[in-house]
């Protein structure tokens, strides 16, 4: 789960990392009073996509009237397809130096990694490799002060500044651990004549740790209504814009099924990994979700492992008898209890395939009106 900047900053601040004075607005009420207190401000759209500055999502103002009109303008803007619903107004800080700090997870090394650079403030993709310091962290001992001293030395920092930034690194690691983060990023960490401030922040929390999120963690819904309904059922679902509704079990085989549809000239309406579950209820709910997106045809591709083909087949038969299925459906069943599953479908006059190629080409021919010979594709 990605957090909005203002949420990430609240967490940083509560954990001892200073941030600029700021407040969140959903309208113009209170903007004037706020600016009278702070003086010149930055007005920042709160969206989850990166590259907000380049897309015109950050404005600056000195006068209250100017600030109000800029807030109004931003609140009706779309940035990379996301409607701006909130702005964060912050006091403008005078910058002496901008630093990049992040802690994330390195999948290949299987360790947390501290990333630090004196080339902060810019798009992190553009920071030259040699200016990015990487320090892998042994999670059993955590990030220790000695390691931050080494990192700040490599960054060329000295004295009080080195100490201050090292201290922020330690606090950032605490935040990373405490909130089950996949990423905590401060870019830039601004050094002024008097203090060090996190001027922008990103946080992504691990969805699989949701059961132990701390009570203060806010909730950010990134999913569409249908995706959310699927997630609640334990189904992994992504909306796409093609023609054929797809249900498969397992992420890899679902992706490969989508690839095959594309290969044979069609496209998928969705990615749906129904997972290992094959209960009647779950299958029914999955089919309802698929039908709600109005595909031209359905392709069900089950390779039974933990999933049992006979259970999927019975569930499908029952669902078919209650739902009004008007579109063609092609089912591919193979693996655990495939013979039982095939027999259950056959009894109901439903043909199933064992061969994936036949199933894919069949569904495409049916999508196109059913006239094509399914074997012509080879």
């Amino acid at each position, binding site marked *: 789960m990605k957090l909005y900047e203002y949420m990430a900053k609240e967490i940083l601040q509560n954990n001892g990392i200073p941030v600029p004075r700021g407040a969140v607005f959903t309208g113009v009420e209170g903007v004037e009073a706020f600016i009278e207190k702070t003086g010149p401000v930055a007005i920042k759209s709160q969206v989850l996509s990166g590259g907000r500055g380049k897309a015109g999502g950050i404005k600056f103002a000195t006068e209250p009237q100017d600030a109000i009109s800029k807030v109004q303008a931003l609140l009706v803007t779309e940035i990379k397809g996301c409607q701006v619903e909130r702005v964060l107004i912050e006091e403008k800080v005078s910058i002496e130096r901008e630093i990049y700090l992040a802690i994330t997870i390195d999948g290949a090394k*299987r360790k*947390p990694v501290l990333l630090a650079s004196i080339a902060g403030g810019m798009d992190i993709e553009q920071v030259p490799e040699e200016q990015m310091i990487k320090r892998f962290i042994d999670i*059993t001992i955590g990030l220790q002060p000695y390691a931050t001293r080494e990192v700040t030395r490599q960054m060329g920092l000295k004295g009080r500044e080195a100490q201050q930034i090292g201290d922020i690194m330690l606090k950032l690691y605490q935040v990373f651990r405490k909130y089950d983060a*996949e990423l905590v990023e401060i870019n830039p960490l601004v050094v002024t004549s008097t203090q060090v401030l996190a001027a922008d922040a990103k946080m992504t929390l691990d969805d*699989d740790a949701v059961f132990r999120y701390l009570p203060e963690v806010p909730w950010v819904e990134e999913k569409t209504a249908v995706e959310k309904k699927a997630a609640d059922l334990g189904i992994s679902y992504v909306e796409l814009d093609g023609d054929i509704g797809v249900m498969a079990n397992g*992420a890899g*085989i679902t992706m*490969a099924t989508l690839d095959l549809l594309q*290969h044979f000239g069609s496209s998928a309406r969705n990615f749906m990994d129904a997972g290992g579950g094959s209960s009647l209820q779950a299958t029914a709910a999955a089919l309802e979700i698929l039908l709600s997106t109005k595909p031209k045809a359905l392709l069900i591709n089950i390779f039974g492992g933990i999933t049992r083909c006979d259970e999927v087949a019975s569930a499908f038969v029952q669902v078919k008898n209650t739902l009004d299925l008007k579109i063609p459906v092609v089912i591919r069943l193979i693996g655990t209890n495939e013979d039982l599953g095939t027999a259950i479908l056959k009894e109901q006059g439903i043909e199933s395939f064992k061969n994936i*190629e036949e199933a894919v080409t069949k569904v495409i021919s049916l999508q196109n009106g059913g006239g094509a010979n399914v074997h012509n594709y080879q």
Partner: protein
Amino acid sequence: MSIIINETTRIIVQGITGTQGQFHTGQMLAYGSKIVGGVSPGKGGQEVHGVPVFDTVEEALLVQQADASVIFVPAKLVKDCALESLDAGIKTLVIITEHVPLHDTLEIMAFSEKKQAEIIGPNTYGLISPGQSKIGIMPNNIFTPGEVGVVARSGTLSYEIVYQLTSAGIGQSSVVGLGGDRVVGMSFIQVLEKFEADPKTQAVVLVGEIGGNAEEEAAHYIKGMRKPVVAFLAGKSAPPGKRMGHAGAIIERGKGTFESKVKALTAAGVSVANLPWEVGPLVKQVLAQGSEEIYG
């Protein structure tokens, strides 16, 4: 021969009294795996399919010598169970459970390094040496013993590819599922090294997918391999920025694309199949070329 497990491997099952634990213990026994004990706190003294159940891993190991353990417990409990068996001296640990919190996985991995143990998973179907033993949840009927090693990130896609191989008359030495999470134990490279060293394995099939750079890193290792490698990759049609089921299967900031993986693997001399059913013919082709190079 085979890698990691064979017919002598002695296995314990953590979470043996749960629905999945019970069902798959039965399936593993039916396949011929040597399940010597199960662990389920508070259920010590019971039996599951004739397998004795213990309260702790240490207790199980006092009674039974074991080489490997497989975990079937809910995600929240995985860390505790994994650390328990590593601490008790288990050197091969298979974690089937999905949705394990990443920070828990990181702790498990750090501890496994200290204990010099190998972890397969989390979020894996496990591994199998056909005709000898299996640890995991894969269907029993699609595998056949032979000389081709298979290593994959994804579960059901491995089944699909193995099914294509078996249908084409190509048997497998071992089949290993690395797991679909962002952080998993064994990597493509570690498994490829074992296949390269295994006298029975003549060729390897790598089944990858979009996201991360595991395939690119594997390509780097494959350049120096003696044995031929065939690959199949999923996610060609996936749009960037969307997580395709697996936590790791996402194209982010232009990285982890299908094209980048195909390019790296092709440059390393890997034959990349466009379609699942091309894998079998490609394997036959590289095996024939291999024997020509040796005998021709």
